[in-house]
C-alpha cells in the first residue's frame, strides 16, 4: 500500500492545483454519495471573494512535487483550509472519516514551517510552532507516525514529538529546553504545561493549535479544561489561530464559537464542511429466530452474526457496554467451529493486551473484533469491510461514526448490519437507520463549564504565575463554556481555591493561594504546586483492582507472577465470594480472592458465569431517536418496514390497549399477582426514567398507593404497588395530571436528591476535580480505610451545614445534566401536559411485556440497604433460634 488515505486521495482527482496554471475551480466540493450539500456550503462555494483568496494560496513547491509523485492531488477542503489559515483565520473543518482531515489540519503548519529560514547556530531557541491536542494518547502516537512519513518524504526540516503521560521525565525535561516544532499532546498535558512557571515563554512562538476529534472533546469536562487552557494560550499569544477537526455535528456553530475568544461574545471560526462519503449500506438483521421481548445479549443472533463474519474479510462488532462485549465474545467462540481469529477490545483490558489486538488488526490478521466505544474515535486500523452493531446504537450520530469505521475511504460505501437485541431495539434500529439516511445528527448540546474544572484551572494559573483576578476573569470568559460566567461566582471559585470558600472562616491560615499587596494572587508555598501537578485532569477513575492469574486453589502470595488481564471495578468484585465464576478478558475465571490492590483469579471451565457490570459506558437513548421511535409507533404505514413478528406485536397492542400518539404519554395500569402495576412509555432514556421513577414513587407513597419498587429502561418505566393505582387515577386521587405535574422537579427533587447515592457519586467527582481532596495514586493507596476521609462523609457534613456551598452547587448542576437527566425530564413533563392517555387494563398489555420481564433482572430501586441488612440479621436470628 502506497501510504494511508489520510494523506491524499487516489480516486477523486477533482482538484488539481498548480499555481502557475491558475486555479482550476478548487471549490467544487467533492460530493460523494447522493446527499445534497448543505446550504452554507453552497454559499461558500459560490463566493467569488473566497475564490480570489484561494488563488493566493501558497502551497510550496516541495509539497506539489510530493503530491504529484504520489499520484495524488490536494483535496478542495485541504486547500480551502490552508487558504483560510493563511488569511489569519481560525477554522473548523467538519468532514467524515477518510477525508484527509489530519493532513488538512497540519497543512498550514507544514507549509509555514517549510518556508521558515533555517536556524543559525547560536540563534536563540525556537519555541513550539504548533500544538496538536487529541483526546486519546494513542491518537497522538498514531499521528506522530503518520505525519512523520510525509514530512520525511517531502524533506521538511520539522521536528515532531509527542508528550503524554507515558513520556519519560528526561524527554519532557529536554522538550522544555529544546521544544519540537510540532508537539502532539492531550488536554491534561496542556494543563500541566500552562501551570509551569515558564509557560509564557514556552508558548511564545506558538502559531496554531490543532484540535482533533473536537466533537468528542467539547462535550465533557475535559473539554471545559481544554477551553480554559486555550483561553490561557490566547492571552500568551493574542494572534493564536485554532484549527478544529470534527466529525459531523448537529450544531456546527457551537464548535465555531468554541474555537475563538468569546470575550466579547459572538465570534466564530470559519467553517469548511465536507459532505457525504458514499451512502452506507445498512441493514437490520431480519432474523429467522424469534426476537426476544427483553434483554440485551442478542444471543439469538449469534449463528447469523458468525456466518456474516465468515463471509467478510474483517468484521468490526460494536456493542454498547463492556459486559455485552464479554458476552458476545464468549458466544461467538462457542460457535467458532473454524477457529477464526476473533478478538476482544475494551477499556478495562490490560493495555498490552489491547495493543496486541490493535497491532493484529493493523496487520489484517484478525477476522473479527468485538469492541466498545474505545474504538469509536479516529483511529483507523486495517481493512474492515463490515461493521456489525449489536444492540441499538442509542444515537444516530454514534451510529454514523461507528459505521464510518468500515472501509475507511470516504468514497466507497460502508457496509453495516444492525442487530437489535429485543423488540424495542428493532424499532430503535429502524429509526436510527432512517435517521442515518436522512443525515440527521443528534450530538448532545454543549453545557456550561463546570465550576469544579474552573477551580482546578485557577489553581493551575496561580502555579504558573501570580494573577490578577480582574484579568483572569476576562480571560476565562473568553472560553466558550464560561462565556456566561458572572463575577460573583468567579470570586467564589477563587475563594474556594484559597481557603475552601466556607462561610465559617476557619482556614485563613492554611490558604493555598493568597492575595498580596500588589493585587496579585500567589500560591502560598511550593507544596501547593506539587499537589496540583499530581491531581491535574478531569478523568476520574472508578476504584478498580488488577485482575491477576494464579493457579487454581493456590494462595495468592505464593504465585505473584501471574499475568495481569486488566482491571475490574471494585464494586463488582465486592459481590463475589471465593469460587464464583465470571467472564472477563474473553475468559471464564474463578474468583480466588483479593489481596491488597489485586484480585486473583484462575481459569474455570463451565458456562454459568456472571458478567461484570461497569459503572458508566451505557448511553441513554438520544432525544432525537426517541422522537423517531414515537413517530414510528404512531404510523402503522411504517410498520411495513419492520420484521413481521415485531409489526404483529404492535398490531396486537393496538388491539388490546392503544399505541401512544407521537406527542402523548401512554400510561397503562393493570393488576398482576397480588400487585398493581403502572407502566409509562415516555421514551426519554434510562436516566430520565430513573429520575422520574424516584419522584413518582415518592408522590405515590404520599397519595397512599404504597409503591414497592420500580424499574426503568430506555423506553418505559414500571412501578408496582399494593394499592390499586388504576382506581386511584380514575377517582382522581390523585389524577394523572397532578401526579405528573412539573412541580415534582421542585421540592420532591430536592428532597430525594439530598440523600441519593447519585448525588454522592457526582459530588465525589467534583471534589476530586476541584482539588478539594486528592486523587488516589498507585502505591499510596494502602493507607487504610480508617485514615482517608470518604467523600460521602464530607458530602453529608457539608450538605447539612452549608447547603449553598459552591461545590454542592456544581454537584447539582452536574447531576441535573448527567446522571439524572433532569433537563430532559423537564422537557418531557411540559410536552405531555394535557396529553396523558390512561388505559386501565384487566391484564398486562403486549407493549408492557418487555419491561415486566426486566423486573427481577435489573436492580430494583427504592429498596433500602437496610432491607438487606434485615434479611441477613433475620437469617442469623433464625439460625440461632434453631439451636
Amino acid at each position, binding site marked *: 500500500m502506497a501510504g494511508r488515505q489520510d494523506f491524499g486521495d487516489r480516486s477523486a482527482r477533482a482538484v488539481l492545483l498548480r499555481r502557475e496554471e491558475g486555479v482550476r475551480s478548487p471549490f467544487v466540493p467533492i460530493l460523494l454519495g447522493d446527499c445534497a450539500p448543505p446550504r452554507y456550503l453552497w454559499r461558500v462555494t459560490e463566493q467569488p471573494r473566497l475564490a480570489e483568496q484561494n488563488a493566493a494560496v501558497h502551497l510550496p513547491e516541495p509539497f506539489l512535487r510530493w503530491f504529484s509523485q504520489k499520484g495524488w492531488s490536494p483535496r478542495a477542503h485541504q486547500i480551502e483550509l490552508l487558504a483560510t489559515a493563511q488569511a489569519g483565520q481560525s477554522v473548523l473543518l467538519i468532514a467524515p472519516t477518510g477525508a484527509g482531515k489530519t493532513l488538512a489540519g497540519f497543512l498550514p503548519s507544514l507549509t509555514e514551517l517549510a518556508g521558515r529560514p533555517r536556524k543559525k547556530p547560536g540563534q536563540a531557541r525556537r519555541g513550539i510552532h504548533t500544538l496538536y491536542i487529541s483526546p486519546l494518547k494513542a491518537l497522538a502516537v498514531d499521528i506522530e507516525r503518520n505525519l512523520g512519513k510525509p514530512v520525511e518524504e517531502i524533506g521538511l526540516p520539522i521536528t515532531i514529538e509527542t508528550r503524554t503521560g507515558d513520556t519519560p521525565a528526561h524527554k519532557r525535561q529536554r522538550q522544555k529546553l529544546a521544544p519540537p516544532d510540532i508537539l502532539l499532546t492531550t488536554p491534561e498535558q496542556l494543563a500541566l504545561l500552562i501551570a509551569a512557571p515558564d509557560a509564557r515563554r514556552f508558548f511564545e512562538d506558538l502559531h496554531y493549535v490543532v484540535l482533533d476529534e473536537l466533537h468528542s472533546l467539547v462535550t465533557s469536562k475535559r473539554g471545559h479544561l481544554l477551553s480554559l487552557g486555550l483561553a490561557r494560550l490566547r492571552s500568551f499569544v493574542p494572534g493564536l489561530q485554532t484549527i478544529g477537526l470534527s466529525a459531523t455535528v448537529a450544531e456546527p456553530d457551537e464548535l465555531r464559537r468554541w474555537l475563538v475568544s468569546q470575550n466579547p461574545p459572538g465570534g466564530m471560526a470559519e467553517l469548511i464542511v465536507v459532505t457525504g462519503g458514499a451512502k452506507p449500506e445498512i441493514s437490520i438483521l431480519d432474523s429467522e429466530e424469534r426476537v426476544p421481548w427483553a434483554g440485551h445479549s442478542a444471543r439469538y443472533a449469534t449463528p447469523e452474526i458468525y456466518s456474516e463474519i465468515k463471509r467478510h474479510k474483517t468484521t468490526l462488532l460494536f456493542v454498547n457496554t463492556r459486559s455485552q462485549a464479554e458476552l458476545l465474545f464468549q458466544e461467538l467462540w462457542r460457535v467458532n467451529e473454524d477457529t477464526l481469529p476473533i478478538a476482544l477490545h475494551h477499556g478495562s483490558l490490560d493495555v498490552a493486551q489491547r495493543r496486541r489486538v490493535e497491532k493484529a488488526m493493523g496487520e489484517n490478521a484478525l477476522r473479527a473484533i468485538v469492541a466498545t466505544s474505545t474504538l469509536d474515535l479516529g483511529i483507523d486500523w486495517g481493512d474492515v469491510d463490515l461493521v456489525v452493531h449489536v444492540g441499538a446504537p442509542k444515537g444516530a450520530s454514534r451510529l454514523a461514526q461507528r459505521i464510518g469505521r468500515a472501509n475507511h475511504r470516504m468514497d466507497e460505501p460502508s457496509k453495516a448490519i444492525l442487530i437489535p437485541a429485543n423488540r424495542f431495539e428493532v424499532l430503535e434500529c429502524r429509526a436510527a437507520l432512517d435517521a442515518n439516511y436522512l443525515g440527521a445528527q443528534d450530538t448532545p448540546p454543549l453545557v456550561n463549564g463546570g465550576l469544579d474544572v474552573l477551580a482546578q484551572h485557577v489553581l493551575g494559573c496561580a502555579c504558573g504565575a501570580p494573577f490578577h483576578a480582574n484579568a483572569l476573569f476576562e480571560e476565562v470568559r473568553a472560553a466558550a463554556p464560561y462565556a456566561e460566567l458572572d463575577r460573583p461566582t468567579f470570586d467564589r471559585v477563587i475563594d474556594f481555591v484559597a*481557603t*475552601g470558600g*466556607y462561610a*465559617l472562616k*476557619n*482556614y485563613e491560615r*492554611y490558604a*493555598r493561594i493568597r492575595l498580596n499587596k500588589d493585587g496579585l494572587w500567589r500560591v502560598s508555598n511550593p*507544596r*501547593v504546586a506539587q*499537589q496540583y501537578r499530581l491531581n491535574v485532569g478531569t478523568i476520574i477513575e472508578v476504584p478498580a483492582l488488577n485482575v491477576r492469574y494464579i493457579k487454581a486453589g493456590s494462595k495468592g502470595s505464593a504465585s505473584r507472577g501471574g499475568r495481569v488481564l486488566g482491571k475490574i471495578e471494585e*464494586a463488582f468484585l*465486592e*459481590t463475589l*465470594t471465593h469460587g464464583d465464576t465470571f467472564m472477563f478478558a474473553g475468559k471464564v475465571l474463578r474468583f480466588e480472592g*483479593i489481596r491488597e490492590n489485586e484480585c486473583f483469579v484462575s481459569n474455570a471451565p463451565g458456562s454459568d458465569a456472571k458478567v461484570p457490570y461497569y459503572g458508566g459506558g451505557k448511553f441513554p437513548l438520544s432525544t432525537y431517536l426517541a422522537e423517531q421511535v414515537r413517530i414510528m409507533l404512531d404510523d402503522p404505514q411504517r410498520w411495513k418496514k419492520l420484521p413481521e413478528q415485531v409489526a404483529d406485536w404492535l398490531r396486537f397492542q393496538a388491539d388490546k390497549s392503544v399505541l401512544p400518539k407521537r406527542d402523548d404519554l401512554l400510561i397503562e395500569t393493570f393488576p398482576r399477582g397480588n400487585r398493581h402495576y403502572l407502566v409509562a412509555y415516555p421514551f426519554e432514556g434510562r436516566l430520565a426514567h430513573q429520575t422520574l421513577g424516584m419522584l413518582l414513587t415518592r408522590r405515590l407513597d404520599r397519595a397512599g398507593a404504597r409503591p414497592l419498587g420500580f424499574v426503568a429502561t430506555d423506553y418505559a418505566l414500571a412501578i408496582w404497588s399494593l394499592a390499586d393505582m388504576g382506581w386511584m387515577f380514575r377517582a382522581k386521587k390523585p389524577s394523572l395530571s397532578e401526579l405528573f405535574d412539573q412541580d415534582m422537579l421542585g421540592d420532591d427533587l430536592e428532597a430525594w436528591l439530598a440523600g441519593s447515592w447519585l448525588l454522592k457519586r457526582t459530588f465525589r467527582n467534583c471534589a476530586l476535580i476541584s482539588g*478539594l*481532596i*486528592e486523587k488516589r495514586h498507585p502505591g499510596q493507596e494502602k493507607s*487504610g*480505610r*480508617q*485514615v*482517608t*476521609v*470518604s467523600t460521602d*462523609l*464530607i458530602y*453529608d*457534613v*457539608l450538605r*447539612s*451545614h*452549608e447547603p449553598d*456551598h459552591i461545590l454542592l452547587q456544581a454537584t447539582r448542576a452536574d447531576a441535573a445534566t448527567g446522571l439524572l437527566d433532569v433537563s430532559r425530564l423537564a422537557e418531557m413533563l411540559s410536552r405531555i401536559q394535557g396529553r396523558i392517555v390512561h388505559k386501565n387494563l384487566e391484564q398486562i398489555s403486549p407493549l408492557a411485556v418487555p419491561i415486566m420481564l426486566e423486573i427481577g433482572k435489573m*436492580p430494583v430501586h427504592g429498596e*433500602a*440497604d*437496610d432491607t*438487606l*441488612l*434485615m*434479611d*441477613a*440479621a*433475620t*437469617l*442469623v*436470628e433464625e*439460625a*440461632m433460634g434453631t439451636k
Partner: protein
Amino acid sequence: MTRALAMPAPLADADFIGIAGERAICDRRGVLYFPELKLLAVSDLHLEKGSSLARRGTLIPPYDTGATLLRLQAVISDYQPAIVMSLGDSFHDGGGAARMHSSFRERLEGLMVGREWFWVAGNHDPDAPADLPGETVRELAIGSLLFRHEPSAVRVEGEIAGHLHPCARIVQRGRSVRRRCFAGDGGRMIMPAFGAYTGSLNVLDRAYAGLFRRETLMAYMLGTERIFAISRSMLRPG
C-alpha cells in the same frame, strides 16, 4: 462465660447485649449505654480532623467538629448519663482542642456540665485536651469493665476499646452493604468510631487477628433505624 445474645426481634432503636455480665444498650448511633452504671461510652470522636487535614492543604469543610458534637448532644440528651467515657482519639491531634472554634468549645463544655467526664488517652491525643474540663486517664476499670483506647493483644474479659474503627460488610441479593459496627464476642467489645469524618476498617482485617473468639464474634451493624446483629459467617472482607 457470657455469649453475645441477639434479643428476639422486633427491637426498636437499641439492642441490649451482655458484656462480661454487664447489660448494655448498643445504640444505632454508635454509642454504648450501661443503664445500671448510668454510663455512656463513645469512641474515636476525632474532633478537629477537618482542620488537621487543612493544615496539610486539604481544605475539607470545617464543620466536622460541629456535626460530631450535635450527634453527641442528641444521645446525651436521650440517655442523660451521669458518666461519659470518651474512649480516646477524642481529638484528631494534640493541637485539636486549642484549634477548636469558640462556638464548638462552648457546645462541648455545655455537654460536660453536671456529669463526670473521662478523656481516655488515645494514640492521636496522648495528652489532656487543652483548657477543657474532664479527667484524662490512660484506662479506667469500673465493675467488671475495663475502658481503654487500644484493645490489648492479651485477652481481657470486659474490655471496652476503640481505636480500630470497625465496620462490617455483607452481600445480599448481589448487593454489598458496608456499615460501621460494634464488634463483640460477649467477652470484649470494640466500638465504632463516632466522628463525622472517621473512616472504618473491616472486622475481618488482619488488624483484628486474635482479638475475638471466632465462634462467637458478632458485628452489630449500624442501621438507619436500628442495630443489626450479624454473625461472623455472614461477613465478607474488604
